[in-house]
């Protein structure tokens, strides 16, 4: 998408986000706005614009399974029922061992699920895509840290299934890379929202006869938040440029760590009010911690990356100038 078209696309998405509340409303709008078509034509714009806006608005949709599915080479409507890896994990949510399928994953948003969900399962000999009847799975609506996300835990042992496709080697990793970029953008959007809340508070809150934003200790915390956000954002853009799986993991880790840094600084600046449910900050903090869990945490991705670097003693190439 070119500049103007991209702007229009972003504006209509923003409008849909601001007028709706909760995941289901947004899901309806995504269809109407042609987001699914945009995902195929220009995945970079579709993913970066939507997910950053979701973060900035504190909104949610079921677009994440669609992104993973697109990366796996699948198309809607199958992707709507695609099961995500469980928190803290990035491997396929299913495993097939001697013909028996075990499932442990997450479904995107809570809704009356009917019929089947789609589970990618490691078979020991590659990955397969399987249809599973919802009736054969245990579904648990996750309250946890962020009930408003409407996540559902999906569990099943020895579940009946029908395999409808084999995934080519490395395809799952490619899907995960794309999903990591999406979650990374949402973390950046969430971080920008937290920073804006804290910035506004720093300008409005008066102590010692001056706005607290005039104190250097406060200013430097907020500056550090912006530095963390811009570093992560640049890494995400760079990962789109070079398209490598490694870069997407680096960017997701930077976005996750950056969001936690931002949350820490912003909450300290917001002080008492940011500790209450009367202020929206807590929602973003909750989102941050949950989003960090999706497709590998900042910490686990960093450790894996470091291990790989120490094993190969070779830094991966960076996108050329």
């Amino acid at each position: 998408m070119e500049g103007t078209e991209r702007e229009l696309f972003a504006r209509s998405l923003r409008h849909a986000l601001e007028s709706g509340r909760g995941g289901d409303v947004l899901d309806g709008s995504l269809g109407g706005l042609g987001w699914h078509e945009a995902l195929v034509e220009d995945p970079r714009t579709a993913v970066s614009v939507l997910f950053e806006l979701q973060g900035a608005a504190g909104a949610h949709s079921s677009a994440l399974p669609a992104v993973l599915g697109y990366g796996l080479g699948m198309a809607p409507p199958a992707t709507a029922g695609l099961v995500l890896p469980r928190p803290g994990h990035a491997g396929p949510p299913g495993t097939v061992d001697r013909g028996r399928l075990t499932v442990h994953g997450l479904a995107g948003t809570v809704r009356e699920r009917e019929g089947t969900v789609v589970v990618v399962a490691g078979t020991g000999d590659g990955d397969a895509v399987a249809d599973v009847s919802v009736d054969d799975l245990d579904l648990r609506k996750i309250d946890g840290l962020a009930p408003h996300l409407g996540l559902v835990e999906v569990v099943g042992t020895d579940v009946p299934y029908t395999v409808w496709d084999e995934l080519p080697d490395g395809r799952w990793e490619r899907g995960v890379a794309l999903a990591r970029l999406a979650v990374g953008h949402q973390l950046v959007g969430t971080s920008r929202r937290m920073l804006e809340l804290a910035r506004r508070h720093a300008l409005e809150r008066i102590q010692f006869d001056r706005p607290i934003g005039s104190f250097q200790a406060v200013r430097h915390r907020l500056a550090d938040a912006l530095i963390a956000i811009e570093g992560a954002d640049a890494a995400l853009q760079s990962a789109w440029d070079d398209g490598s799986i490694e870069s997407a993991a680096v960017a997701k880790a930077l976005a996750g760590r950056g969001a936690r840094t931002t949350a820490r600084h912003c909450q300290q600046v917001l002080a008492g009010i940011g500790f209450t449910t009367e202020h929206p900050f807590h929602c973003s903090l909750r989102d941050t911690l949950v989003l960090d869990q999706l497709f590998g945490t900042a910490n686990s991705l960093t450790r894996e990356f470091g291990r790989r670097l120490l094993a190969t003693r070779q830094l991966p190439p960076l996108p050329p100038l």
Partner: protein
Amino acid sequence: MELDEFRSSLDTWLDRHDETLRATHGAGATLDDQLAHLSLVKRLTYEAGWMRFGWPERVGGLGGSPLLRAYLGEALTSRDLVEPGIYSMTEVLAPTMIDFARPELAAVMVPRLLSGAETWCQGFSEPGTGSNLAALTCRATRDGDAWHVTGQKVWTSLAQYADRCVLLTRTGSVDSAHRGITALFVDMDSPGIVVRPIETMHGAPEFSEVFFDDVVVRVDRTLGHEGQGWAVAMDLLPYERSTALWHRAAYLYARLQSLLHAAPPDSLDPVAVGEVAQLVFALRARSRATQHRVAAGEHLGPETSIDKVLVATAEQAVFDLVADGLGPDVAMGDDPTSARWRRELLYSRAATIYGGTAEIQRNIIARRLLDLGSER
């Protein structure tokens, strides 16, 4: 010339001339050796044309995108043919001359800097004005067609090697702050200039005190107009945080790579390694976007303070990792390779101090990017 073509022809040329371009003095070089070698590399790359790309034709350049300059510095740095700090001073000083010197003066002088025929320095900081640059007191008094300069500068990098100096002086009243500053282009062999090098912690007299005692500077050596010195300084600082910073990022990537090769097994914590590599990635990504903004003709401003904080943070993180992975060598090794790691580790401590401290960068970010208003 387009970047891709430039890249491949330059790489071929560098491969072919590696032996001529590579310093014979190895890792334990003195600053004298480094400066002599830098002049050689600049001369050879200038004569072959590479150093002239990305600079306007009116100052002896061959035109083309500034990306070509960024790549040249990246290639020389990552091949370990130049030390990025002293190499990249050109990136800061030449644009100032191009933007503010009389065109005739720039046309004569800039080629001397690019070709390595001359070394220049930048006289900004004073004993009483570090972060608070606008309070500088080095006085220039106008007398007919000459300025008379009296005062002192400090932390002036390479002053003892320099042929010229871009000097900030006070020409307004004592309390005229940033309004009463004028930039001058001064010959360092002028009578009345005394340079006293300062021995640094990392073992090189990299910067000096410079004393001016009634030094005469012709008025046609004024950069910009009288009282425009603050604009000259503000114009120069974003350059320091763009192309020069890209070169430094290339250097950090190369040194981190060397550390991965050199560190004994199990001397490094995987999480620490991963995190430092991620910082270098983020820096490179951010700086890459900045290079492309420069190439698109965008005016750089306070947002480059983010680049500057990222590079300082990454540099100290890389060398903190060196202290972990190569601790015994750094602490006790007397071979040239250990001495180099030690020198670089010590130098990295200055990364959050020079070119605007980490605190000043955060002040700029808070005021200009976050719009937090005045500090008082």
